[in-house]
């Protein structure tokens, strides 16, 4: 079992990772961040992506889809942004956010690793 810090460290080790954050989308605040720096303000990303997650959750409710979001992929010109919603008991309302360099990242591998990080995470 990994805590928040370990999980973020593992996320930062994903090939091509630029930054990662564990975000509470009920408040839009990050529980923890790693990497990012000047080029990517992770607190801005946490707040902004909270709106993305909330919009999708609401859309699914309105469509009457009785399902849940596993992850959301946003493809930019030079980056991939992956949002993985956490499902475990005690971590509902949280998502893991990772920004990846498109040239260095392997998307399938990144999703697989994120799934593993989620499974190990205990909050």
């Amino acid at each position, binding site marked *: 079992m990994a805590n928040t810090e370990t999980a973020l460290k593992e996320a930062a080790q994903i090939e091509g990772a630029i930054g990662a954050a564990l975000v509470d989308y009920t408040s839009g605040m990050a529980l923890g961040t790693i990497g990012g720096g000047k080029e990517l303000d992770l607190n801005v990303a946490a707040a902004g992506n909270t*709106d993305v997650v909330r919009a999708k959750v609401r859309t699914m409710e309105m469509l009457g889809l009785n399902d849940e979001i596993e992850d959301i992929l946003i493809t930019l010109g030079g980056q991939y942004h992956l949002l993985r919603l956490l499902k475990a008991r005690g971590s509902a309302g949280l998502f893991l956010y990772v920004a990846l360099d498109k040239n260095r990242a392997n998307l399938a591998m990144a999703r697989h690793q994120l799934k593993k990080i989620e499974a190990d995470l205990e909050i």
Partner: protein
Amino acid sequence: MRRALRLRAERRQMMTAEAEVLVELRRLRARLPQLTGALTASADGLVLAQDAVDGEAESVAALTAAALGVGQRLADTTGQGGFRELLVRGEHGYVATYAAGGSAVLTLLAEPRINVGRLHLEARRSSARIGELVDGALERRDPN
């Protein structure tokens, strides 16, 4: 008496920024639709500009000044430096106060579902802008 006169003169000068501050408050409410009210008050509790806090603006401003006093002392006593912001979460929403320059504060009311991360980002930017407007108005010489 002299103090009262000075305060009144100061407030009059601050009020010259009212129109611009109000524009900033409206801009902020447009960016954060879950805000239910916004006001700017002087640090001693007088309303400088307000948007949608009708009726209770005066008392919110006065209470903000009281909370600001406690917040300042608390930050000071615990060695955290000058006052920056204060967030109160009630059962039905939030009240947030941000320092705006040296002599004013920005107080916002928000729905319980608001994205607090975004609230902080937008309000910090706005309070800096309002601080510039109010401090700028205070620096301008009163023509009389």
